[in-house]
């Protein structure tokens, strides 16, 4: 895997790419949030990641894990709302997975799983509640399976994970929100795409773009061709049934 200098550069580039992308998508995310929330997701995420990218821009000799942690702590103190603790606190906490061996295929799986666990724990959300978890869960499961079971190269695995996140975003449209401010709308939240799932997809797309640059490869995206991600058997039993009910009503 790449040396520490390259890893640092990659983290900085990823933060920069995400900040630029969220700036571009600021209005769209805010429009999504207007429909079912309080119209601040785009502005908050854009402001937070811009500050995070700036915060890590000049850190020359920090450990890669510390840079990732810095992104998290900056988000906590700049974003506020639920998104600050959910995105920032979870990145901060998961950054520890890079502490010993830096960023490798294996540690990135650990990071993804730790991030997902923290988000679910903090937000107390499960699949099908119309939150970022709906994009994140299939993405993380797909990534883990692609690396550990299918032995795919990290870049290809990440590509499949992003496709899975995209399908997850689409899955949020027809379902009813159970968490966050959208839940106060009850059935009126049906038919609207979840802004948190959407920003999660954008962040992952920029991670993929950064990885393509640093791993010198190209990934073909095809969200529609992605297989159903393998869930934990326990998740499938519980969440799968609930989701079917929701879609049908």
């Amino acid at each position, binding site marked *: 895997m790449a040396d520490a200098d390259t890893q640092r550069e990659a983290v900085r580039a990823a933060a920069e790419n995400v900040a630029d992308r969220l700036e571009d998508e600021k209005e769209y995310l805010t429009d999504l949030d207007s429909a079912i929330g309080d*119209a601040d997701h785009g502005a908050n995420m854009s402001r937070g990641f811009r500050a995070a990218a700036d915060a890590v821009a000049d850190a020359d000799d920090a450990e890669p894990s510390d840079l990732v942690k810095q992104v998290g702590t900056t988000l906590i103190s700049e974003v506020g709302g639920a998104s600050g*603790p959910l995105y920032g606190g979870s990145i901060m906490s998961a950054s520890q997975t890079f502490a010993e061996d830096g960023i490798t295929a294996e540690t990135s799986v650990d990071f993804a799983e730790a991030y997902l666990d923290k988000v679910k724990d903090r937000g107390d959300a499960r699949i099908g509640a119309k939150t970022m978890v709906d994009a994140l869960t299939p993405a993380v499961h797909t990534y883990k399976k692609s690396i550990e079971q299918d032995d795919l190269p990290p870049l290809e695995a990440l590509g499949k994970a992003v496709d899975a996140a995209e399908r997850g975003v689409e899955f949020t449209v027809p379902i009813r929100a*159970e968490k966050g*401010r959208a839940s106060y709308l009850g059935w009126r939240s049906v038919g609207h795409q979840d802004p948190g799932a959407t920003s999660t997809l954008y962040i992952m797309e920029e991670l993929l773009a950064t990885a393509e640059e640093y791993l010198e490869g190209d990934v073909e995206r095809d969200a529609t061709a992605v297989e159903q991600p393998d869930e934990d058997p326990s998740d499938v039993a519980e969440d799968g049934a609930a989701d079917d009910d929701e879609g049908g009503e």
Partner: protein
Amino acid sequence: MKKLINEPEDVVDEMLDGMVAAHPDRLRRLDGQEVLVRADAPVDGKVGVVSGGGSGHEPTHAGYLGEGMLDGAAAGEVFTSPTGDQLNEMIEACDGGEGVLCVVKNYEGDVMNFDTAAEMADIEGVDVEQVVVNDDVAVEDSLYTSGRRGVAGTILVHKAAGAKAAQGADLQTVAETAEKVIDNVGTMGMALTSCVTPEKGEPTFDLGDDEIELGIGIHGEPGTERTETMSADEVTEHLTERVLDDLELDDGQEVVTMVNGMGGTPLMELFVVNRRLQELMDDEGLDVWDAWVGDYMTSLDMEGCSITVCAVDEELKELLAAPADTPAMTVQE
């Protein structure tokens, strides 16, 4: 949309400086923080009572800083909860050695960030208690939702808990007083128009000329249902019925009522609502001990109102009538 703002991202910062400039003897801003505290904070030997949340609800929160009410108020971005580190700075600045009560409105961001701040303060050795206000009867409290929202009833919590702390009660007792209000208060709101947030610059939701939203929160989020326009009396009856159904009060119970404006509604209309509200209280056999009317917890320029009813006993009456000296509320002895 025409607005008296400079840059949308500067609104909160400039508002806080303007508030301090209007009340230099009462308010002080923590250096580098979007936090106001009462000028003499921390008050030695008194439990600190603090609150906070997104901006856009003025005079909430900083309007209630001062003797007899809040010691600290944190201002997040518009409709966004303050960050954990800001809340922690506020808690530490308001600890006079007896601990700090955080009055939190039940929104996930607020709850998560106050949790984080309480953990940080705990490490610093500050005793912290939290109460979560959830007075909005429009939304269900079920296993799968985030629970009921905290809205205008929060002001009654600030008043009662603040008075209890001013009397010298300990942290646990102040927290119990706050919980007593929370257990006895219900609110429901409605909107005639959406608000316009500075960042977005246009209404958050579209409402036809002949439509109103019932069951709104205080963040410009749409309500639980949309109906045809109703008269002031019909709106009042609808909101009051929902609140009373939830509270299930006994005949003859003493209550405080509150008609709260959402920021864009003239007092004239709030008084019209209050007139019908008092008739309904009479019809229901409830004994109104005090009736509050005004903009207590707003939602920027939204037109609309909420109705709050809170059952009171001798202790709560004494606390709500106790002296307070704040920019938005003064009660004289």
